[in-house]
């Protein structure tokens, strides 16, 4: 990489991504991913594990991410119809490593999820990204959302893009 990436550039990107997800602009979000991207949410009792030998909540390759978006846009995805309102707060953004071809970034999140006549659900945790720097800006090669709750419990399901 010719030039160091600044934290502000990364933050701008993450805030943009959060806005797309909160506005349910899912196709535009999909365009932020690389062609071999992965999206993972580990089980709460094994936050640091490998989906090849551990049961996860979500462990999608790009094919299944695409299928997930197709599903979420369908009004028969009952768990998200009508779609939840979400609001993401992202902070403590850190570039952990930029010596390799891909940037490693971590950030904390709170995602509030609202549905009609339901309790507010607060998904709290940290993101771990692998970002690729391309001519068109950053692309997400891997996106892990690691929840802090010891169990999903009253959060119920992760039926939206966390």
């Amino acid at each position, binding site marked *: 990489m010719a030039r160091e990436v600044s934290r502000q550039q990364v933050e701008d990107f993450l805030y943009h991504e959060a806005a797309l997800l909160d506005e349910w602009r899912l196709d535009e979000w999909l365009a932020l991913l690389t062609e071999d991207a992965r999206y993972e949410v*580990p089980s709460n009792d094994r936050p640091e594990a490998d989906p090849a030998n551990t049961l996860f909540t979500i462990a999608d390759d790009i094919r299944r991410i695409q299928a997930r978006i197709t599903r979420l846009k369908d009004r028969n995805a009952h768990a998200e119809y009508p779609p939840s309102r979400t609001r993401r707060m992202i902070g403590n953004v850190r570039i952990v490593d930029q010596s390799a071809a891909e940037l490693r970034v971590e950030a904390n999140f709170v995602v509030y999820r609202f549905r009609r006549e339901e309790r507010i659900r607060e998904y709290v945790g940290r993101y771990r990204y692998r970002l690729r720097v391309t001519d068109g800006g950053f692309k997400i090669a891997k996106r892990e959302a690691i929840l802090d709750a010891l169990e999903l419990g009253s959060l119920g399901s992760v039926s939206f893009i966390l």
Partner: protein
Amino acid sequence: MTDRTYVVNEPDAQNFKVNRASLVDPDVLEAEQRRVFDRCWIYVGHESEVRAPGDFRTRNVCGRPVIFCRDSKNALRVFLNTCRHRGAIVCREPEGNAKSYFCFYHGWTYNRDGALDGVPGESAYPASFDKCEYGLVEPPHVGSYRGFVFLNFDEDAVPLEQYLAGAKDYIDLIVDQSPSGQMEIIQGTQEYDIKANWKLLVENSFDDYHLLTTHSTWLDYMRNSGVQMKRPERGHLLPSHGVAKALGNGHAVTDNQNFRGRPVAKWIPVYPESAKPVIEKIRAELVARLGEERAQRVADTNRNLLVFPNLCLNDGSSVTVRTFYPVAPGHMRVRAWALGPKEETPEARAIRLDAFLTFYGPGGFATPDDVEALESVQAGMATYREVPWSLVSRGMGKNEEQLNTDEPHLRAFWIQWNKLMTAAGHGA
């Protein structure tokens, strides 16, 4: 409690309905804790979750905190997780290996076998105090079948194998996936709440009638991935043939020809191309070990089994062990795990886990919609005084076989539940 009718079962009139009060009434919940959960064999865990002396998992079973563990001789034990002194929890970690169980409140210590070992200031107790009488308490019965461990709080309980009745054959079919006859729980627990009565998840776990509408996006996902699905035959709703059966004592099952792919041993285009040879090898092992007929039974049929009252073994897109218990009439807690053969290769294990997530679990393509359906039912239950009955009569009076989209299996659950709830001599 006893003056209300919960289940109307009139075979001659071909009428079967369930009183919706059974899903909302707090008195029903209290009664079923005593009459159902305290009298049945209830799933605690799987032998593979504790392997060495001192290994433990803490769980909630029948509303009681328990320690599921191996003692000093590596025997399976279940201790009630409460100090004999004043009652505090003596093991507060979810899992681990214990040298002893220590109550931090006043310092009483129990060894791995549950015996009371250490009492600070023991000399101040009167002569009548005998440490031998103050070990951790165990439920009256603990039993294990093919690795699945259950407890029973009823002194007079029938033996576990007698209780399991016809469910044993289906557990055997699942365990036959393993060359050594040993399955194991794979690490990673899915723990989530559903704002619905626990009995609704019993129904939902093996109700194939809901597949077409609740899971249309999952069926679309399968089709879009290139999975061939036949048009249903005349009079059928689903792409493949499947039946439903009662297995005795409230246990029941759906028994289906597989169309959805199975890590043992049917490849579908949802899986990567690289999974083909791995699955072919598994299948060859099944045929060599079990013969063609039994191998087909294990590999080409899938089943959702209910072990009454609250254990579901769904052997479909993968194998999930799922148990759940009520927190309140309209609130349950679910625990689910993936199960696989102990000797599974890393490649096959990865395929199994990936297949699991296409359907099951709180981030899967199907379970969240089930949760939504059950919560939607529970919301509707607020009208139970005006709309008191739910209809469970599909397939009644039919001459032909009972299909998986009929409801003999749901009726089997409700009949047993009603029998226990209304039995004389077991006061709530």
